Structure formats: C-alpha cells, structure tokens
C-alpha cells in the first residue's frame, strides 16, 4: 500500500471513531461542541501514561478514554442542565477551558506541544475503529438505542413511559466523550506529537458536521458522513485551490436537499424492503385520469 493511501485510511479510521463520539450525544438530542476537549483529554492522558509509565498503547488509549469519560461524567451534571443552543454554548466553553488548561500545563509541553514515544500503525488503529463501530452498533441494537431516540424525539412522553431521561442523556454524553477520547488517543499515538491548538472548536464542529450530514438516526450515518468528509476532499484534489470551495458548496446543497442527513432511518427500512404494504390509497402515487 502506498504511503498516501495508508495515510488516508488512517485519517478515515480516526475520523470514524470521532464521528461515533459525536453520534451518541446527537442521537440523544445534544449538540456537543466540546468533543475536541474530550479528544484532547484522551490524547494527552494516554500519551502521558505511555511516555511516563511506559504503558503500551493498547492499554494507554483505553485509559485515555476512561479519563475523558470521567471528566465528562463530572461536567455532565451542570452542563446537561442547559438545552439546545445553550448546551452548545456550554460545551463550547468547556472546550475552551480544556484547551487553555493544557496550554498552561508545563509537564504536558504547554504551547510547545507534547511528543509521544510509542508509534501505532494502520492495523492497530483500524482494529480500534472496528471495535468502536461494533460496540456502538451493538448498543443501538438494544433497548438503549430505542430509549435514546425516544428521549431525542419527545422527552416528556419518554419520561411518562418510565424512561429515566436524565440517565440516558448523561450516558450518551459520557460514552460519546469516552469514544472521542479513544479518537484522541489514536491520533496522539500515530502522529507522535500533539498540541493543544489542534483540539480546537473547529475540530468539534467538523466532527459534528460529519455526523449531521451522514445522518443521526441510524448507526450507519456517522460512518457514511466520516467517509464522505475524509475522502471527498481527496477526490477533489484535482483542482487544488478550489477543492474546498466545491466541497463546501456540495455541503450546502446536501443540507438543503437532505436536512435530516444523507441516511435516515426511514430510508434504511425501505432499503431493506421493510416498507409497509401501502394500502392507504391517499398515500399512493396518483395515476393519470382514466
């Protein structure tokens, strides 16, 4: 495999993990713009334990995810009191705080960045990616997936059905943050160098866009979105200067045409031939006058 192809695949694998980190809170109806912060926590804490305690990446990255999850659990209590745009603002602020904190921590290199000793390659990274995708797919095949969507669609009714709305919101937030922590850990160990500036709100927004455009209703949506966001700019490389203009224009068209994302649950059901027998008459396509 050429170095270029491998580079793209690694980027794709990391972005897919990231996308599932964004997917969980989005599926529960939360716009989390602090994902980059949790990725940073995962990246720095896994890098630190592997540098200082010589813990192998295989254990260091899950540790990073755990650290991100713990921090998420702590902040979930105040942050998830807010709703909608205010939740987005609160998580945005959280991202700024984490970024600024890392910049000021001397033992993590501060603004100069932090080198990572152990180096991981494509097979290692893709194994993590497959594991994360499988985990989320399994999770959404359980009652958890249904309950999270129910919370997203109608909190009041979900509550009256006996669903602990808050518990599901917190779980989605925490598990999503932990997955973002895995993405950060993979990134750190592959690129061997991390700096706080990389984990900015731009990263959070890009990841959230991946998922929104891929579709938040099915577990396949994030995969689709991440693949599109990673590969399309590469395919457009032909016109080096204009490719991001073309790409952005494409996104706007996509948003206008498919506001609920590229792949919706309804579509998936139709794709697999799960369409109901359409006998309602009123919903049948009208034939010409006979």
């Amino acid at each position: 495999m050429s170095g270029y192809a491998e580079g793209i695949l690694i980027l794709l694998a990391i972005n897919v993990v990231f996308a599932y980190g964004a997917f969980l809170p989005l599926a529960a109806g939360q716009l989390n713009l602090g994902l980059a912060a949790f990725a940073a926590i995962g990246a720095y804490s896994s890098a630190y334990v592997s540098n200082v305690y010589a813990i192998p990446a295989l254990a260091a990255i899950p540790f990073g995810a755990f650290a991100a999850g713990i921090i998420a659990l702590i902040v979930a209590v105040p942050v998830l009191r807010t709703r909608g745009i205010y939740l987005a603002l609160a998580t945005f602020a959280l991202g700024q705080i984490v970024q600024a904190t890392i910049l000021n921590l001397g033992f993590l290199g501060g603004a100069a960045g932090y080198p990572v000793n152990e180096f991981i390659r494509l097979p290692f990274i893709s194994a993590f990616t497959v594991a994360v995708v499988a985990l989320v797919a399994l999770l959404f095949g359980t009652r958890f997936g249904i309950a999270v969507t129910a919370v997203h669609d109608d909190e009041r009714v979900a509550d009256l059905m006996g669903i602990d709305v808050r518990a599901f919101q917190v779980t989605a937030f925490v598990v999503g943050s932990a997955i973002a922590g895995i993405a950060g850990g993979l990134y750190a160990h592959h690129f061997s160098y991390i700096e706080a500036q990389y984990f900015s709100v731009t990263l959070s927004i890009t990841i959230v866009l991946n998922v929104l455009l891929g579709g938040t209703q099915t577990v396949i949506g994030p995969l689709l979105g991440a693949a599109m966001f990673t590969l399309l700019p590469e395919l457009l490389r032909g016109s080096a200067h204009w490719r991001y203009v073309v790409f952005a224009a494409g996104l706007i068209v996509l948003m206008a045409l498919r506001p609920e994302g590229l792949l919706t649950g309804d579509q998936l059901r139709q794709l697999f031939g799960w369409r109901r027998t359409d006998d309602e008459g009123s919903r049948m396509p009208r034939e010409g006058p006979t």
Partner: protein
Amino acid sequence: MTAGRPILRFETVSKHFGGLSVIEDLTFAVRRGSRTGLIGPNGAGKTTVFNLITGVYPVDAGRIYLDADDITNVPSRRRIRNGVARSFQNVRLMRHLSTLENVLVGQHSRNGGLFGVLQPISLSARNRWREEARAGLADAGLAKYERATVGGLPYGVQKRIELVRALMAHPRLLLLDEPAAGLNPAETEALHTHLVQICRSGDITLLMVEHDMQFVGALCEELVVISFGRKIAEGTPQAVRQNLLVQEVYLGKPAVEQEREAVAESPLVAAGVSRAS
C-alpha cells in the same frame, strides 16, 4: 377486600396556572374494572386531570390515590410502574422510530433495568419482548405497519399505535385522551370493539376523555362530568344525560331563564352553546 376500593381516587384536588384556576376542589372516584368517561365542555380541565394523574403537573392541593397508594408526590416517571399508562390528545409517538420500536418503548417500565436496557431486542428476531410487541400490534390489526416509520402513517393508525404502546406497560388504569377524535366511522367502530376486548378480563380500568357522546354513551358504564374544573355530575350515561346541570352546561340555560337573568353571558353558557352545535 380490594374489590370494593376504587382504582383511582381524587380528593379535593386543586390546580392553578398562575391566577387561572383550572381544577377546583375536585373529588371523584373510578370504580375498578369499569369503563369510565370523563366529559365536559372544552376547557373544562379534562386533559389537566390526566396530567395530574400521570404527574405531568404537581397538584396544588388535595391527594390522588391509585388503589391503596397515595401517588400525589410520586415522580411522573415512576407512575407508569404503579400501573398508569396513557395516550395523548395530539398523538405523541416517537417520529424517528418504527411502529414496532414505538411499541417497544411502551415496555420500558417493565424492562428498564440495566439488564433490560442492554438486551439486544433489535438484533434477534426471536426476542421475547419483540415477540410480545408484535403480538400486541397484531391484536390491534396493525401488523402490516410494523416496520414503517410512524411519522408518515395516517392519523387513525398512529392513534391505534399509541393505544398499543400504552397497553405494553400492562396498566391497571388506562387513560385515553380523545381516542375517537379524528377517526372515521369504521375506525371508531373498530376502536370500540378493541376497547371492549381489552377490558373484558377486568384487569384494566378504562378512563377516557372523549367528545364523541355516542361513542362514550355506548362504551362507558359511568361518567364524570366536569365544567370549569369542578365536578358537576356523575353516574350512568342515562342519569347524566337527564341531569339538569349537565344539560345547562352543554346546551345553555333555557332561554326564559337567560332573559330573566339579563346579565352579561357567563363564559360557562358561552362554552355550553358552542358545544351544542
């Protein structure tokens, strides 16, 4: 024994929204195993009564008993476990879920522990909960909509799905908010049959808000009439129909009396007149 105790009891319950008193000193009981109708003009507070029973709003005064339990301060999420399930006046299904998944949501109160939540109900077709939900849909004649996303389904179908979802909680008390509204005659007939069938075992008590008097009269054994948050009558449909106060609320005061009073029309009468059309 428990047979004599009403399944639901309101004791001098009041509810205000700001300065507006919506429920005033309301006391009534619902007999176990009965089909009871809660009727009254628009704005009488019927849906508010449902919201108080299910805990959407806290009461300002008074107590609510479900069977022997005082549920006045039980959080809304836990009341379904006490055996209260409901449908909504404006259908409130989860629009991104399929019909079957919506019905699965109805089981949450019985299967919502950590083990239940992590059961792969969408992955194995032979799952017991999944089979139960499918059977519930089949009983209501909705099997063919199983995999459709609910958002695009006809209104009448959505209302029936909501009923199946509520039944999945195995309620002792089933609250239906205008189940027949917006249904065509054939659908109304089917609903009547379905509800009679549901109540046949005697395990489920039905309390419903409904404006279709023919439907209520044919289905319900007992009626509670409220107007402006107060109970004005209760009894069998025949007795209620002959009650003068009820006639006044629904049809307006007799013209003679109205002239004699010659006061500005009370909103009570205005509401009654508009209902009569």
